[in-house]
């Protein structure tokens, strides 16, 4: 029996990052039509990917800032290097 949940969740992940083969597409569709758990898994998996995307693309707006002292030191090091050149 190839239409099991382990395989289906594997294909759900693969599908979000690449193109499935025709056979894989059919296998997944047949499984999902009869398995509400994997349908829920798919919905949540897509939701997680969306959240992950937002997490890392909004990071810059989240006002993460480098410590001011550290910046001062960085600036000094850069100027030091520039003087050498």
């Amino acid at each position, binding site marked *: *029996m190839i239409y*099991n*949940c*382990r*395989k289906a*969740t*594997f294909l759900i*992940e*693969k599908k979000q*990052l*690449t193109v499935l083969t025709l056979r894989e597409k059919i296998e997944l569709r047949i499984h999902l039509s009869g398995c509400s*758990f*994997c349908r*829920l*898994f798919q*919905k*949540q*998996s897509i*939701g*997680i*990917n969306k*959240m*992950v*995307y*937002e*997490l*890392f693309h909004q*990071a*810059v707006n*989240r006002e*993460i*800032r*480098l*410590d001011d002292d*550290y*910046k001062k030191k*960085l*600036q000094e*090091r*850069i*100027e030091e*290097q*520039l003087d050498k*050149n």
Partner: protein
Amino acid sequence: MSIPDSEETLTTAPVILDPQHWVANHADYLFSYAITRINEEEQAQDLVQETFLAALQRIHKFEGRSSERTWLTAILKNKVIDVYRKKSSGLGKNITSLDTEQQDQDFFDPYDGHWKKSHCPEPFGIDTNDPLMNKELKSILQKCIQKLPALWLSVFTMKHMDEESTELICEELRVTPSNFWVIIHRAKLNLRACLQKNWI
């Protein structure tokens, strides 16, 4: 020095590097880039410094075809990958054990491959559009991501944050393509379970 006419500056003016102002212009951006990928403050700080210093040494190689920030970010990105590689190389021996389906047994019945009753997905707050709830869910997600084993975390972040090609990830982290998919699958199974467990 002659001033080029304005039309020319718009189309062809090469970007000129301004290292005097790198810290003021890019340090916070680079730090937030690093910290979201590494999640260790001290190491992220070090990477920002290393990036600036490496950039200074390569300043003559800058061709002015990308913006200053893009160029600096590319240097930082390679440094982040180096960190991933170091963190995950110690796990090299465990990769082979990923081939067995043993770890799936947490989630699936070893005989028929269906969900174990105790691990079946259940509905939780992931599909609501409540921004406040969403914010909380995201902070849980972030913690769940950090719990992943180093190699999985590296594969997952490279794929999802930077949308790197599968080939590049496999090459950089020395993972076979089939193991790549196994890792992506396992990582998501674990993340989803972690969210369900820690939500509410």
